[in-house]
């Protein structure tokens, strides 16, 4: 059997980050990517938090093809006909260097693949891996079509669906409870229009999340990220919630999940944001949202798991992260493989440094901190009652009707008593203390 030192399954951000570190250290590495190029099968919402990963490969990020540095953060609570937006702009978001950027993957991943090539790594596009080869409990290589290729170590960065690792018994099959579906349109708009609509300086971007009247009461929300010459507008919805909805649906209910985005886009609050835009692409992807409880065993004899395949993603309601985790896990995977190579020990013990580094880094620490969030988010009131109640309260405060207007305090107190002073809210607040 032909053999290389390291095979990376999947040329997304986790796989490429690992390959970059390995190629840079002179390890023979081959990345197998099933798309036409890295990024061709990938979808992001799209924002990459750069601050957590800037110290890895610092030479890379200066020239990375980011779309816009995020200067404005917006959260919109969509009620029935009323909405409330909280907008935060801080000089420090875009201070040198900015903390986060919007990203489009076709461009970004292709660029990183080129960088891997420049370091001497081999990235093979259009190559689907069909199986991980297992011998006496150890991963010894891969099979692609008729060809079996051996490796000292395989970095499994195959993405969220884990088709190969679950088949090889390295990780569980993905389940609905731990995953969400994200789908989006990329809508082209001139840069000047984007900057006007979101009050941005040239080159700066906005990230806007939407809760409430987006997902029909299901776990999830809407998102909008401004790219250079387009916006990414989409919906994320929990798979378990979708399946439960399908269970309850009447046969004549012909509604389908994709319509959530159409309805979202047609809301009077959203229409002006997308007006005049041209839809250029439609995409969808599964998102790991199981938190730390759904992270599989990260390493074993002859293999490491990285990125989405390892469940390394975090939806913390306000901050949604995955790409920084992918790049970080790839970096630590490369470090672990280099160390294993130095000792010529690619067993689970030889690769154990990987999990230790992830535990010591933001990756598993932040997932641990957020360990209660997945359960917290199963509360449907988050996606129905609260966005509505907040908007209703503020709407009443701002309303001047034909008759006498009650005092501000009376209006506010009435609204708070009505929507926030009940056992449900007290319980929700109590469970929120742990997030």
């Amino acid at each position, binding site marked *: 059997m*032909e053999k*290389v030192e390291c095979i990376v399954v999947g040329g997304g951000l986790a796989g490429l980050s690992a390959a970059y570190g390995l190629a840079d250290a002179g390890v023979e590495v*081959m990345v*197998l990517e099933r798309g*036409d*190029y890295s*990024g061709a099968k990938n979808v992001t919402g799209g924002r990459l938090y750069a601050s957590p990963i800037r110290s890895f490969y610092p030479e890379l990020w200066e020239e990375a093809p980011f779309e816009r540095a995020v200067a404005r953060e917006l959260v919109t609570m969509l009620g029935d006909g009323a909405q409330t937006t909280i907008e935060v702009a801080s000089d420090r978001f875009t201070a040198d260097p900015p903390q986060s950027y919007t990203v489009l993957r*076709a*461009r970004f991943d*292709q660029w990183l693949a080129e960088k891997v090539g420049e370091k001497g790594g*081999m990235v*093979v*596009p*259009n*190559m689907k891996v069909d199986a991980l080869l297992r011998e006496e409990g150890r991963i010894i290589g891969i099979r*692609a*079509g*008729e*060809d079996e*290729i051996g490796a000292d170590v395989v970095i499994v960065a195959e993405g969220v669906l884990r088709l190969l690792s679950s088949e090889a018994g390295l990780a569980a099959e993905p389940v609905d409870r731990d995953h969400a579906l994200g789908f989006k349109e990329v809508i*082209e708009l001139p840069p000047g229009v984007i900057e006007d609509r979101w009050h941005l300086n040239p080159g700066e971007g906005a990230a806007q999340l939407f809760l409430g009247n987006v997902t029909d009461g299901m776990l999830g929300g809407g998102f909008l990220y401004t790219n250079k010459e387009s916006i990414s507008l989409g919906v994320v919805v929990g798979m378990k919630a979708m399946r439960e909805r399908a269970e309850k649906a009447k046969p004549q209910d012909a509604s389908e999940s994709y319509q959530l985005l159409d309805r979202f886009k047609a809301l009077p609050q959203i229409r002006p944001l997308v007006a005049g835009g041209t839809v*250029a692409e439609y995409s969808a992807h599964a998102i790991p949202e199981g938190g730390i409880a759904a992270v599989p065993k990260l390493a074993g004899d002859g293999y490491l798991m990285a990125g989405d395949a390892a469940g390394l993603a975090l939806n913390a309601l306000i901050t949604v992260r995955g790409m920084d985790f992918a790049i970080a896990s790839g970096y630590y995977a490369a470090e672990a493989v280099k160390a294993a190579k130095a000792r010529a020990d690619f067993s689970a013990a030889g690769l154990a440094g990987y999990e230790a580094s992830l535990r010591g880094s933001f990756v598993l620490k932040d997932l641990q901190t957020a360990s209660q969030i997945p359960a917290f988010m199963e509360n449907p009131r988050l996606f129905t009652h609260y966005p509505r109640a907040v908007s209703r309260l503020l709407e009443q405060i701002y309303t001047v009707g034909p008759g006498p207007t009650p005092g501000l305090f009376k209006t506010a107190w009435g609204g708070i008593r009505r929507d926030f002073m009940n056992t449900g809210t007290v319980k929700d607040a109590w469970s929120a203390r742990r997030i």
Partner: protein
Amino acid sequence: MDIVVCVKTNPDLQMVRVKNREAVVEAVPYKLGDLDKNALETAIQLRDAAGGTITAVSVAEGNRKIRETIKEALAMGADSAAVVDDPALAGADPAAVAAVLAAAVKKLPGCDLVLFGEGSTDNYSGQVGPRVAELLGVPQVGFARKVEAVDGAVRCERSMDEMIETLEVALPAAVTVVSEINEPRIPSLMHIMKAKSKPVEEWTLADLGVDAGAVAARREIVSNLAEEQDRKHVLFEGSAAEQADAFVNALIKEGVLGR
């Protein structure tokens, strides 16, 4: 039989978007031309049946992505490759490309057959094959849908409107092939890995003894825009039968349907 296959790197046309009538080629991958793959597959089948070697030859025209494309040709099954890369070739027209290819073929140690796709995937001028044949002074068969080796010659079949023509040409010769000739193989991972160690010659115009002035473009591309589609936006009203009648009448009036 020693075969040279002339190949070109093309943007993957299926991946090109059109924005304001202009092609968006940013982030579009470059690939071996579709018909070039047919030519290469033809060469592989001839070699595997009768022995010999295959050299893939390409002209860079200022495109650095050529190295990836050549690897694709080697992975499919070419034994070696030669790339002519020279800054003077940026914007080269078909005449210039043919001159360079002919010089490259002459520089190679031996060549019995030069194969081409009938045209390139992108510009599809279809000129390069016949021009190279002329410059090399060898017979040429265009649009072959079958190529077989026979003693000291190749027998080619091509489809003319209502008949099939079979031609036999003595080697050395040049042949261009059409897409029906075969289904090009998809390189396996093993072949892609082995392609890394196959020899690739890198030549400049000076190496070929071609004068930079001789490849200066004599053609200027004035514009390259997507076709504009204008629709008439006619709405037919009335019952289904009335709408159908009105629709058919309108099509007849437009000359789309015959009377």
